[in-house]
């Protein structure tokens, strides 16, 4: 379980901006020296606010964003790729093994193609099947797994609701039998009543097909329910990374704590307990010195402005990038996750 399927080492994605006539060109540091290792068969969560670099990171793993530095190793036991160096032939092979599901099921599906053709397209583009019968067979198989009727395959996407469309997008992403799937805000555009259905489907597909997911989301409660492990990004840097239960029960980074406490509680008697963060995420063209979070951190002190904290191990797979985490630990009450009424602690 702990063998990584895909691992990024010091991965950076920097976009140059058109800048001033003189002087250095400004650069957007969308992802800045990130180390993440996604174990085989895991449901790995990546959370952060807009501008945190989570989408760019996901795209970089799929070679869909320009990689400025660092390396990415993909190893599923059958093949091993050095992703940032793939030539066009191997890239095609990699594409069939690493796929993506997008947020907006309305924008992701061509309105002029039938559902069958939408799902079949990756097979045809990648030349994975030889005959039409074989293609149809694969399409029917994946459609059934995604709980689409055969009768649905003849229709056009406009006839479907948001939840059904997202199931079509999932079928399209999985038809090439990938091992690794990046799901970028895959349920964010769906109604709550449908969201649960798509999350349950993703989890059961993961088990059935032995998939590994990178699940990118801004919604911590969704992540808490679906992911095994969560990494928190802020301005292109990893702030904290831990097994899900551990992160929600004992967050160590002040940013993670603030994020958790900002989730509106469903209990009307539990109002106004959000630990308010000042201001907004700074621009990645001009990131703060030292710890990227210090401009909004309630516990920042002088050295946080100078020194950038490295990730340090809390315990096991729990890591945090904060200079003060040891002294803050225990000193600051963990507001966010309230214990269940019966007093049992989630482990």
């Amino acid at each position, binding site marked *: 379980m702990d063998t990584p399927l895909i691992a990024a080492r010091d991965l950076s994605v920097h976009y140059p901006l058109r800048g001033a006539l003189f002087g250095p060109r400004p650069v957007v540091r969308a992802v800045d020296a990130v180390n993440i290792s996604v174990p085989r068969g895991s449901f790995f969560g990546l959370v952060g606010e807009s501008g945190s670099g989570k989408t760019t990171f996901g795209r970089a793993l799929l070679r869909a964003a320009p990689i400025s530095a660092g390396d990415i190793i993909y190893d599923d036991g059958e093949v091993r790729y050095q992703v940032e160096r793939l030539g066009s032939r191997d890239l095609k092979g990699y594409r069939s093994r690493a796929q993506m599901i997008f947020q907006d099921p309305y924008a992701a599906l061509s309105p002029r193609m039938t559902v069958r053709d939408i799902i079949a397209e990756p097979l045809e583009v990648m030349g994975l099947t030889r005959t039409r019968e074989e293609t149809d067979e694969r399409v029917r198989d994946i459609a059934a797994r995604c709980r689409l009727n055969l009768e649905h395959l003849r229709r056009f996407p406009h006839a479907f609701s948001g939840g059904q469309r997202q199931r079509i997008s999932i079928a399209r992403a999985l038809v090439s039998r990938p091992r690794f799937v990046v799901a970028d805000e895959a349920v964010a555009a769906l109604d*709550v*009543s*449908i969201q*649960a259905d798509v999350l349950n489907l993703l989890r059961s597909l993961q088990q059935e097909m032995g998939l590994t997911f990178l699940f990118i989301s801004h919604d911590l409660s969704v992540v808490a329910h679906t992911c095994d492990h969560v990494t928190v990004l802020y301005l292109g840097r990893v702030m904290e990374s831990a097994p899900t239960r551990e992160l929600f029960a004992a967050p160590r980074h002040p940013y993670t704590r603030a994020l958790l406490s900002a989730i509106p509680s469903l209990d009307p008697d539990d109002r106004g307990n959000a630990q*308010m963060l000042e201001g907004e995420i700074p621009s990645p063209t001009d990131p703060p010195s030292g710890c990227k979070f210090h401009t909004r951190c309630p516990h920042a002190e002088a050295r946080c402005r100078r020194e950038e904290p490295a990730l340090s191990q809390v315990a096991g797979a729990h890591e945090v990038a904060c200079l003060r985490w040891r002294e803050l630990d225990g000193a600051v009450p963990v507001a966010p996750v309230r214990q269940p009424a019966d007093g049992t602690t989630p482990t």
Partner: protein
Amino acid sequence: MTRLLEVDNLTLQFDTDEGRITAVEKMSYSLDASQVMGLVGESGSGKLVSAKSLMQLNARNAVYDPQTRIILHLDGGPVDVMTLKSAHDQKLVRGGAISMIFQEPMASFAPALTIGDQMVEQLRLHAEMSPARAREISIEMLDRVGISVPAKRFSQYAFELSGGMRQRAMIAMALSTRPKLLIADEPTTALDVTIQAQVLALMKDLVADFGMAIIFITHDLGVIAQTADTVAVMYLGRLVEQGPVRELIHNPAHPYTRGLLAALPNLHDLDSELVPVAGDIPSPLERPRGCVFHTRCPVARAGQCDRVVPPFTQLASGHRVSCHLASSEAVNT
């Protein structure tokens, strides 16, 4: 509490190429001054168009049932919103006594005018005042909603502001005319959770300060639990349940409300399974007969729920539900 708004039998249809579709059906509710009502429902439930009716903002193909009554109790006496026909009369409910804020603040600011120009225009449309006075009030309002250097922001364009700042500027503009009722359409849905917390805190603060009522449209029950006094749940154009926020969240009576709550991820219990509401919301062209929810209802009774529209049953004080099973045991399992 003084009554601010009474909506009675609001029925709204739209003429489309595919026929006349019903968006809201026989919706009745009332709202007191400075009360916050959460309006919940999924896409297509009619929550937005029903709120827009209060401002007569629906498209030209909207057809209101002649029995629809929308009465607004203002200082000068009651106003029947349905009788406001001319643009001049409608100013009263369009930015005067009623204001609206939107999910996407970029869409409510004209991109080629400064924030200040738009605020001044709005103020002078609704009250006679000099441009200098309007400017003064606008800058005060920007300051009030927590925008730093308000005089500078006043002469900037919407695109120059960050998402959270834009949302604050929009709130400032909506409140500058001191409306009695604010319609907030998913005002925090597009925001990050830390910014959402800031905006919600600001809105609560402003309610206390300005004493206005709010209709808070959202699909997020967490946001409702944090802000609303009372909650109305809509499904396919019907109001299915309404009640005080604690009652509704702790003792939901309608199977749909229960379903919505069960579908939510619960941070207190990571082991609990997420239970989706089965099926999809039907197309408005194929509105179910009887109870509109019966096609997805886990406890629907054949012969009754698919034939007869359920009347409202009063439960606790202020808590009512439109469900045939509300008075029997079956729903309380």
